[in-house]
Each structure stands twice: as structure tokens, then as C-alpha cells.
């Protein structure tokens, strides 16, 4: 049953990702990205990372992408014209180059970690909110705090830049 769901969700994620790139309208692209994030969240859930799945939905799909859509609506960006024609040869060769790149990446991973085994769904149970919280506030406390300060600096910077003309 689980591999069945995996292929449905993975297919949906890939479909949304292709749609994200190929759509001409910014709102359609943004919504495709939400679709990718939703599919990824359910995949995390299947792998046992339930807190990560919820955080993905709340933070990425629910907050960041809403802001993206919000900005696109405010700017009232229309469908974009195809800027310049890409040659058919480039598209053709590009596909093979893409396949070659993916091949090299998977070859390297296989070579570096030969006995990784395959992913088993539902076998791992370390993704509950309690365990993520314990890890964040003990083992990874320093990176967590540094990230918080980084985001704080970014917020302050955004306000300074936005208020410059006052």
C-alpha cells in the first residue's frame, strides 16, 4: 500500500514541479510550488517525520507561499511573454545533459555510500514533536540560535531598507 501512495505523491510532486517551470503565469507557478510542498509534506509524513511535515505545511505552504502570492497579486503581474526563442537543438541536447548530470550524482552517491540500503516507510519513529524539540534544544542548540539571529538580522535589514526614504 505504501509504495502505491509513494508513487502517486512522487508523481504529483514531479508534475507540479514541471508545471511550476512551464507555466507562463506567475500565480499558476506559485500555486504549483504549493503543490510540490504539499506532496513533499505527505512524503515526510510517510517516512515518519510528522513534525517536519506539519512545519512544512504551516511555514512554507501556509506562510511563505501566501506572501509570494500576495506580492504577485499586489504587483498585478500578468502572463509573461516568451522572452526569446530557445533553439530546438539546445532543448534537445539539454535533456541529455540533464540525464547525464542525474547519472553522475546517483553514481557518486552509490560510490560513497555503497551499503545504504533502501528506504522503508513507517519504520522510523524519531520524528515526533517531542524528539525534534529535544534535539533542537540540546544537541543542535547552537546552530538553532545562530539561525534565529541570522533571521533577526534579515528582518532588521528589511525594515531598514524599506524605511530608507523616510
Amino acid at each position, binding site marked *: 500500500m505504501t509504495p502505491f501512495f509513494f508513487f502517486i505523491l512522487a508523481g504529483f510532486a514531479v508534475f507540479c514541479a514541471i508545471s511550476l517551470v512551464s507555466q507562463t503565469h506567475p*500565480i*499558476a507557478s506559485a*500555486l504549483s510550488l*504549493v503543490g510540490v510542498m*504539499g506532496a513533499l*509534506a505527505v512524503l515526510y509524513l510517510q517516512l515518519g517525520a*510528522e*513534525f517536519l*511535515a*506539519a*512545519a512544512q*505545511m*504551516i511555514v512554507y*505552504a*501556509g*506562510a511563505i507561499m*501566501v*506572501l509570494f*502570492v*500576495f506580492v504577485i*497579486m*499586489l504587483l498585478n503581474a500578468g502572463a509573461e511573454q516568451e522572452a526569446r526563442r530557445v533553439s530546438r537543438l539546445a532543448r534537445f541536447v539539454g535533456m541529455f545533459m540533464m540525464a547525464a548530470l542525474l547519472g553522475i550524482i546517483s553514481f557518486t552517491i552509490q560510490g560513497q555510500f555503497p551499503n545504504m540500503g533502501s528506504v522503508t516507510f513507517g519504520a522510523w519513529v524519531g520524528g*515526533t*514533536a517531542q524528539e525534534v524539540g529535544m534535539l533542537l534544544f540540546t544537541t543542535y542548540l547552537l546552530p538553532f540560535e545562530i539561525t534565529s539571529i541570522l533571521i533577526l538580522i534579515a528582518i532588521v535589514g528589511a525594515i531598514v531598507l524599506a524605511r530608507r526614504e523616510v
Partner: protein
Amino acid sequence: MDFIIISLIKTAIVAFVLLTGLAYLQWIERKVLAHIQIRVGPYRVGPHGLLQPLADVIKLITKEGFVPSHVHKLFYFMAPWLAVTLALIPIAVLPFGPLIEVFGHKTFMELTDLRIGVLFVLAVSSVGVYGVALAGWASNNKYSLLGGLRSSAQMISYELPLALAIAAPLLLVNTLSFREIVNAQDGYWLGFIPRWNAIPECVGFIVFLVASFAETNRVPFDLPEAENELVAGFHVEYGSMKFASFFMAEYANMITVACVGTLLFLGGWTPLFPAPYSNAVPVLLLAATGLVLLIAGSAPARKMDKYTFPVVGVISLGLALIFAVSFLVPVVQTILMALFWFTAKVLAILFVFIWIRGTLPRFRYDQLMRFAWTILFPIAMLNLLVTALAVALTSK
């Protein structure tokens, strides 16, 4: 196999009750608002307008689904679908009662018990803003676009105090599962004060209520659909079932928020008094209502009271009898008592929603935003910090 059959039965019951509840919540709202404003409200269709929701549904379904020519077709149709789907989903993780045993099958009175139930509801409701935002944008109309933009900004802003207000009771109960949250609130301080989170977390509860008015786009924060500024706001270009979908979504969101508030702050289905006394409450309440109505019906002040009062009175007495008989069958009593207390609390919160709508005028947009960021957010943050400190000091 058992699991599938039981789940199907539960889903059918929950879906039926939820959808009927949606329709009748609207009737309740119109009636309560009418009486607040000294009117009678819906009165023509059925006794006291009781069939009005049915008439509204038939009207909305059979209406011509007109599509304006200037809309973005795909998103125009997607928006109401998204809004209503995302509004109906959270009910799947909300529990209504304890573990029960029916005909030898043990089951929980809810559809699923997620370990991250609270996060799930937050996640779904945070995605729910797309329905409104898309509707406003896809209609290609300046009023609806402004409504959609207002709604997105408002929902993003009020999600923060809402999440912080929800986080405080979670610190007290130390779990994210709704079932365990309610179980942690079972019992009484000093033998008679219920251990509900609303008592130590009264500030959090008020912040939660205020933020949920804004999240559900209700008065006094119904800026997205302010009639006198924006015609009808984000749904100005929608008609027939597409308009009804937004309407359903709004009421479904209200019910969800009321259920979440009940579960997190008011102890879910745990009774107000210790069990031996609380079991008699519905019987006494319904019997008293029935008797009063029968006596009032015998000397009617208006013409129709001669018929309506005795009918409602007999129904109340019948319900009282059902609750009284349930004392003999413990299983039925468990179910009925859980449902009675849960429904009572949810209806109380919903009544506050309607009451506020009948009382307060609408905020101005800048007031709304300033209120969220300079008053509500700091209060919620402070409340969370104080709660965290108290929990840290009291735990060993």
C-alpha cells in the same frame, strides 16, 4: 475489515451532522441576530423559519451558475473548491468523546487520532487563505482583489497570535494530540473547579477568541467582505453554488474554531461538575424546559404559541426521557453525556461569535492591523513566556 466498516459509519455520521449543522448554524445566526435587533428573523418557511436553510440550499443549487467573461477561469473555479475543502478537512481529527464500546467493538468518538492533531489543524487552516486570496484575484475585479488582499494580510497577521495562544495550553498538557489534551483536563481542583485550561490560561483563551474572529473573517474583523466599502469583497463575482461554497467554508471554519477552542481550553467533553451530578444536568434542564413550555403553551400570548410551544415542550420532555433512560445503559450514557457537554460548549462559543456580530461595529483596516501587531501579538507572546516560566518552575 472491522476498521473500514466502523470508519465508514463514523464518517457518514460526522459528515451528516457537520453539513446539517452548517445549514442550521446559519439559521441560528439569523435568529439570534434578529432577536438582538428586536426583529423576528426568518419566519415564513416552516414553523419559526426552521425550513429556511433547506429552502436556501435548494435556491442556491438550482440557480444559474453564471460565469463573468473577464475572470481567470481555472482559478475562478478552483477558489471556492479550495475554500470549502480545506474548511471541511479539520473535522477529521477533532474528537467528540471518549473511548466507547459498541457491540463489542472498541472505538474512539472521532475519525482519526493524530499525534500532531493540533499542528494538522493549524496547517490546514494556514493553507485555507488560498481560497479567499485566489477568489479575489481570479475575479479580475478591483473590489474583490482588495477583499482578497485584505483577507490574506489579515489572516497572516492573526495566525501569529492564534498560534501563540494555542501554544500556551500545549505547554501545560505537554502533548499535541487532541485526545490527550482533553484527558489532561479531566478532574477537578478542590473537588469542584474543573481543571480546564481556560482557568490558568484565561488570557490565552481571550487572545484565541479574538484572533479566531479575525481568522474566520467575522465581525468585527470582516474587512475582506465589508459591504459598504467593497460591495461584497472577495466573492463579489460569485453566484449560485460557488457563492454557497464560500458561505459553507465560513461556517465550517467557525465550527472548527469553536471545536478547537472547546478541546484546548474548555476541557472537550469533560463535564462542568463531577460526574454523579453532571449526569443529571441534561435531564433536569430539558425537563424544566419542557414543563415551562407546556405551561406557557396552555395560556398562549400569540396565536401560534398554542401549537409551537407544546410541540417543542414535548420534544424537550422526550429528550429528557432519553437521557433519563440512559442511566440504565452505561454505554449510551457515556456517548450521550460526552456529546451533550461537547455540543453545549461548542454552541456556547458559537453563540459568543454571533453575539459579538450583533454588538460590535467593524474595525477600520489600519486599526485592525495595529491591533494585531501592537496589542494582541505582545499579549500572546507575554502569556506564552509566563506560562513557560511557570511550567519550568513547577516541573521537577
